[in-house]
């Protein structure tokens, strides 16, 4: 896969380089905070929350994953349970993986290709009554087979570049076939994996504990004797816990103010790693409601937003940072600054942009329009972004109020079309632009699009892009798709991409930030310099 240098530079990960004297030491227990009350269940196949990953990822192996030594890269995938990354055959439609020998589940039983195939079949083709949250990621997969104990074959319906990144999904834990066959719900409440740590205890709503797996298949790993993850939803508790060294870190991300507070109080005892985050707040007008059915009004809304000046200002107070299009800014498929500046909402001259917005509103008879912006009751960065947007829209004479709802009623509002314009969000794990931009497709294709529009041209463009395997052509198609969605039709608009800030105790070594809080969480390479 091509990896342009520009794309690599665009990833703003500031992973601290290891020095020569940073020789890993074994031993110790890492205590970290999990910014949630508790995971809904322990089953990665079923859940979508980081609370499940941060609790249970260290217990499991996956087939392939982002490179733990270079997780900031959006294109580096390496084997975990397989022995070598395969070259596709059959015109890109068949991928054959050889599985490591000698891998054992924590109960001592051997892990074979049958377990890998059974786990993937549960994800891609879940049996009746079983929830698989990411079934739709794998529309390209026809079947998964295990012809012998060391071989797993994925047969695709069509060749696509989206397949390998999808396969590196951090929730795709390998379960034991025998258990899945007996009770497909067993993993919701129980843990049995083959990862670097063995389950040592779950204090419900309090903490998760793991101990070193002495039979781990990667020699010398993990370094830690164990870990304790403490659940704490309140940010103040987590910051205080790190300050008082009750915990060494958290893995989701803190706002700039918390980072600054910790650094001010603890100085060089608190290094910080930062990265662009594969999450973004979007603005979705409800096309069913007038006047948002009029493309001129939608374009006016996006033309009023000054992303270029807004991003650096917001970055001082909120978890946002980088201006980008529909693709994660660090990806080779992302738009360059010049390409972005040709799209409504990213014009370099904001005065010209707002003048055009006013002209469009006048033409559409929507001058001085009043409407409500629905938002989710989450501080970072939702409320900051929404407040900024309302101010931006006031500059073209719009009168916007904000309706903030708790998560449940917020989703109810989205699904029942009970909004004028809403803050929406797209937060993905592995950077996989071809699947990630699915969010912009009409609801008939992508159920979590709440714009209430149908657009066959957009769907056709997307399908063409999904099936294209030549990178250059695919990138051109992505630009066409992006321009069409954000500008020509203005179905949805962008706000600055989120920014991940991880302050941590300086004795924690071997952990590197990635563009997602779901990735690189098995803790195998983490060690303590105490």
């Amino acid at each position, binding site marked *: 896969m091509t990896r342009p240098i520009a794309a690599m530079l665009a990833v703003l990960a500031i992973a601290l380089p290891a020095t020569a004297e940073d020789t890993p030491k074994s031993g110790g227990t890492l205590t970290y905070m999990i910014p949630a*009350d*508790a995971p*809904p*269940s322990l089953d990665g196949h*079923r859940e*979508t*929350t*980081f609370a499940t990953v941060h609790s249970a990822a260290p217990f499991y192996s996956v087939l392939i994953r982002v490179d733990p030594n270079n997780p900031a890269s959006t294109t580096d995938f390496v084997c975990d349970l397989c022995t070598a990354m395969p070259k596709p055959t059959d015109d890109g439609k068949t991928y054959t993986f050889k599985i490591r020998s000698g891998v054992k589940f924590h109960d001592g039983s051997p892990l074979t290709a049958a377990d890998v195939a059974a786990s993937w079949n549960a994800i891609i083709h*879940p049996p009746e*009554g*079983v*929830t*698989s*949250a*990411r*079934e*739709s*990621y794998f529309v390209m997969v026809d079947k998964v087979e295990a012809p012998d104990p060391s071989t797993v074959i994925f047969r695709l319906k069509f060749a696509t570049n989206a397949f390998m990144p999808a396969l590196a999904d951090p929730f795709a834990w390998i379960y034991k076939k025998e258990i899945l066959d007996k009770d497909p*719900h067993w993993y*919701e*409440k129980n843990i049995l994996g083959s990862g670097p740590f063995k389950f040592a205890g779950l*204090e*419900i*709503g*309090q*903490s998760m504990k793991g101990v070193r797996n002495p039979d781990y298949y990667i020699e010398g790993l993990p370094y830690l004797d164990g870990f*304790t993850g*403490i*659940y704490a*939803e*309140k940010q*103040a*508790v987590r910051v*205080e*816990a790190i*300050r*008082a*060294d*009750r915990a060494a870190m958290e893995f989701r991300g803190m706002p700039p103010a918390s980072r600054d507070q910790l650094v001010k*109080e603890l100085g060089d005892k608190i290094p910080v790693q930062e990265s662009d985050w594969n*999450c973004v707040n979007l603005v979705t007008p409800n096309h069913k409601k007038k006047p948002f059915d009029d493309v001129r009004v939608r374009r006016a809304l996006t033309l009023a937003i000054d992303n270029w000046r807004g991003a650096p200002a917001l970055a001082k107070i909120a978890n946002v940072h980088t201006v980008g299009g529909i693709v994660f800014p660090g990806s080779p498929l992302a738009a360059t600054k010049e390409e972005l500046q040709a799209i409504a909402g990213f014009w370099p001259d904001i005065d010209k942009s707002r003048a055009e917005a006013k002209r469009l509103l006048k033409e559409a008879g929507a001058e001085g329009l009043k409407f409500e912006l629905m938002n989710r009751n989450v501080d970072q960065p939702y409320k900051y972004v929404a407040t900024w947007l309302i101010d931006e829209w006031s500059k073209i004479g719009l009168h916007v109020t904000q309706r903030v709802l*708790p*998560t*449940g*009623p917020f*989703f*109810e*509002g989205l*699904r029942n079309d009970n909004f004028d314009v809403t803050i929406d*969000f*797209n*937060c*993905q*794990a592995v950077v996989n632009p071809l*699947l990630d931009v*699915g*969010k912009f497709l009409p609801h008939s294709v992508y*159920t*979590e699009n709440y714009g209430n529009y149908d657009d066959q041209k957009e769907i056709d463009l997307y399908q063409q892009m999904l099936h294209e395997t030549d990178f250059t052509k695919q990138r051109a198609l992505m630009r066409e798709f992006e321009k069409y969605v954000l500008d020509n039709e203005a179905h949805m608009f962008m706000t600055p991409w989120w920014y991940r800030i991880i302050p941590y105790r300086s004795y924690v070594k071997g952990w590197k930030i990635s563009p997602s809080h*779901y990735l690189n969480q098995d803790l195998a390479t983490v060690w303590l310099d105490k």
Partner: protein
Amino acid sequence: MYRYIIKRLLLVIPTLVGAAALVFLLMRLIPGDICVVRLGSGGGTFDERAVQACHAQLGLDRPMFLQFVDFVWGFFRGDFGTSMWSGKPVLYEIAARFPISLEIAIMAVVVANLIAIPLGTLSALKQNSPIDLVIRVISIAGLATPSFWLGILFILAILNVSQAAFGSPWMPPIDYVPIWKDPLRNLSMVIFPALTVGYRTSAVTMRMTRSAMLEVLREDYIRTARAKGLVEHIIINRHALKNALLPVVTLIGIEAAFLIGGLVVTEQVFNLNGIGRLFVQSVQNQDYTMTQALVMLVVAAFVLTNTVVDLIYAWLDPRIRYG
């Protein structure tokens, strides 16, 4: 007395049934869907079929009437079902959190009464003196200060003072250990929330003790006791305080019941995995079964506490049980 007790206990049943019906219906009126919250709140992709499978698994695709019948039938059998969020039995989830809430509630009540009754009595005895004024300021400050805010101040003060004194900040542990496993660690964790909540509770009780004492001290029988030359501490402790405590006991009962499930924010500030925090989570997550069970637990705590208070009342004042 026995007839009175039986009458009071029988009244508990219709109260609980009414509350059960109300909470079931109110929960369904809150907009939202636990499956969508679970699958969608992370922001990642999820499949509509996953939502449907989740509904089927949780029984949410069944008619509401059947769900209600299940709930009421389970309630009478003491079976609240399984949490829709975690899939674990509701009673197991509650039992895991109940000890910490109970421990803090008990400690807070003890702290509150140790502060409130002596100070409230002293305030009444020294009415309008500088001592009374100081005590009234203490109690009004307690009423005006939200306990969670006080909790935050406590933690910040501990962090800053320890940093200034020892060079590195210290705070109470954030992962709970039962008192029987490690008493010192347990107490260092729960003492601060207990003080925080206890102070707030003491303010209410202090005011009540003071006003009740002032009323009793003006009664004829107190004047008679003084006239016949009884020692002052006997008049205060045996004759005045015992009678003044009647409304105070009622208040303590109500406050104690509230503390079991009402420490919502304090538990979050101190990262205590108690019933209050579970309550917030289950409402946020739209976990019907858990919320229903918790509401019923709080209702039952209130009803039972009030029943016990009524019985104590009857014991303290014979006119009530014979009335």
